[in-house]
């Protein structure tokens, strides 16, 4: 018995060691630029200008990200992490910002608020000075509560619910849920996609409820008729046959899906086998659906539309980002990767604007103040922030054709 116990302990230690390795591999911790630059100026600096020696320390700004790296919603977290990683690497290779190099630490929260707070505390212990909040809304709201206490800048790439940035230190890259609901309704009405609409939403999810409520209000104003509202919960999110049957009988021309990609994958495959031909229209949660639905079922996503601020082929910057991302990770970047990438460049812009150094005692205040002064031309559009923390930017709708997002064009 004791032997087994000892064996188990030994096994755990080995596993822990491996886990450590994995973490190290994902952290681009090299700080070559910060140390290299002063080397050249070493001799004169030490003699005539003692201040110039300061950047020789090679200050590092530790940015902490939290998001689902495992579980049903792992694509979001992995995309944000990879996008952010790429931006950090680019910035460090280009010499950092005023001699400051970036370091990204990323923790898994499995979309769970409690785990996100634990991850946040762990990151704080590791010296985090700017937080990327959390990738998903529920977790991000929990993180916003604790980050308020610490007063550090929290810039969530994709926490879209209003409360994610309820405190003064909170900012976001993506749209807010109300905007998504309103924009979706406007787009459907303006392009005459449908007049009778059915909704399937996740009643147990904040993100889904937020978009759905605003969509319903906006749809009523625009003269769209909601013919069927079907709910599910995280306890009943695999079998949608009943909801789809109800919708099939309601005469809906379009089905609005303000939900995440995993459930949308179930709905689309089940709708396909039930022979339903309605248009499916979703929010940014549908980004990543191709990967979720698997190669066997790609045909079920044909013609699916969703709101996204990120078009991989919009301009030169996006084309370069897309090809670099493909080279690095072997996948087409989705909106979440672009959000993560933009978040890091926004931090860079704020750092440049404020001239703050991570060692400054008023670093947090300087960074937060700089956020409302900057303009960032990112991969998800040109962004400016007001004191509420919300960005101003335009939305686009993409249509999936043969498993790839294409820009919407009126027929």
């Amino acid at each position, binding site marked *: 018995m004791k032997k087994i116990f000892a064996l188990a302990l030994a096994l755990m230690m080995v596993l822990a060691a491996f886990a450590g390795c994995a973490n190290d591999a994902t952290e681009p911790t090299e700080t070559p630029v910060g140390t290299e630059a002063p080397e050249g100026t070493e001799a004169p600096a030490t003699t005539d200008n003692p201040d110039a020696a300061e950047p020789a320390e090679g200050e590092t700004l530790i940015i902490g990200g939290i998001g689902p790296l*495992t*579980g*049903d919603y*792992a694509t979001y977290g992995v995309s944000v992490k990879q996008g952010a990683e790429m931006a950090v690497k680019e910035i460090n290779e280009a010499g950092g910002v005023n001699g400051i190099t970036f370091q990204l630490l990323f923790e898994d929260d499995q979309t769970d608020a409690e785990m996100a707070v634990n991850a946040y505390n762990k990151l704080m212990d590791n010296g985090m000075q700017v937080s990327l909040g959390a990738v998903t809304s529920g977790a991000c709201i929990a993180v916003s509560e604790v980050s308020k206490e610490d007063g550090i800048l929290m810039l969530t790439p994709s926490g879209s619910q209003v409360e994610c940035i309820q405190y003064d230190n909170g900012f976001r890259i993506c749209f807010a849920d109300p905007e998504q609901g309103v924009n979706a309704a406007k787009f459907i009405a303006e392009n005459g996609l449908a007049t009778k609409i059915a909704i399937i939403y996740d*009643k147990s999810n904040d993100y889904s409820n937020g978009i759905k409520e605003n969509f319903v209000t906006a749809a009523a104003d625009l003269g769209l008729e909601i013919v069927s509202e*079907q*709910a*599910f*919960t995280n*306890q*009943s999110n*695999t*079998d949608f*046959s*009943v*909801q789809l*049957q*109800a919708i*099939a*009988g309601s005469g809906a021309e379009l089905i609005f899906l303000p939900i995440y990609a*995993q459930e949308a*994958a*179930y709905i689309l*495959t*089940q709708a396909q*086998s*039930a*022979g339903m031909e309605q248009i499916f229209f979703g929010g940014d949660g549908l980004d990543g659906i191709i990967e*979720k*639905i*698997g*190669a*066997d*079922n790609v045909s079920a996503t044909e013609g699916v539309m969703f709101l996204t601020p990120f078009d991989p082929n919009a301009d030169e910057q996006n084309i370069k980002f897309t090809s670099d991302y493909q080279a690095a990770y072997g996948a087409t970047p989705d909106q979440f990767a672009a959000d993560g990438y933009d978040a890091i460049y926004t931090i860079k812009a704020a750092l440049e604007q404020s001239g703050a150094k991570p060692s400054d005692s008023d670093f947090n205040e300087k960074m937060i103040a700089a956020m409302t002064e900057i303009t960032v031309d990112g991969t998800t559009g040109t962004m400016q922030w007001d004191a509420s923390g919300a960005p101003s930017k335009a939305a686009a709708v993409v249509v999936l054709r043969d498993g790839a997002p294409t820009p919407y064009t009126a027929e």
Partner: protein
Amino acid sequence: MMDLIVNLVSGLSLGSIYALIALGYTMVYGIAKMLNFAHGDIIMVGAFTVITTVSMLGLPPALGIIASIVCCVVLGVCVERIAYKPLRKAQPLAVLITAIGVSYFLQSLALLIFGSTQHSFPKIITVPAIEIGGLTIQGNMLVTLAVTTIIMVAMSLFIAKSRTGKAMRAVSEDRDAAELMGISVNRTITITFAIGSALAAVAGVFYCTTYGFIGPYTGSMPGIKAFVAAVFGGIGSIPGAMLGGILLGVIENLAKRYISTELSDAIVFAVLIIVLMVKPTGLLGKRVNEKV
């Protein structure tokens, strides 16, 4: 009216899957007097076997289903030999906890091997949806219904007519007396686990073709529902498990459609409580008098 019929058919199809799983629960309970909570996870193992053989190795679907059944039977028998047999004389609570342990073990093993993401299940049953007078009924639902009906009839005949079936009934009635009559109790229990696991594999294939995806925890919810179905129909009774499973599926679907999607599970369990209050042994359960 059309709507009601479509919902009834999909309820029957879901219910017949529950019934297949419930058969495994009820047979094991009847014969070994234990609740095999790992039964739901056998479904998951069966479905992952299909994914491995059909999606990854590219074998034809029929071979994949056979591999899945063989794999589940071997697993069911191994679990019984390794985890439950040493506890045959132990108190029921110890066996129950072991079963929960086996369930977690299987889930964690799948998590380690396949990761936590949902895998898309290969489309093995490709029967087009049929239309009868404006009704659209999904092809896979009809196949599910047909195959489960055949299996249930075959099972009933097997239990009623065959020698092994007779032995199973004898062991469930009185284990000691059966042993005195020359029936090998251990062998009978092993066969029961094998049959139960094979049924779970078939149920897993149908469950996953209906919903399209599978993850390490896919088996736990249908497992729990099927356990409820077994209790509902009267645990230990084979026709009870079939009736309980089908009723449960139909009630669940109708409650979802006509009352509330969020409350459907609550309604199912409320019906169970009411039935147990009126008939404590379940719909077809027998009252067993304690012999002194």
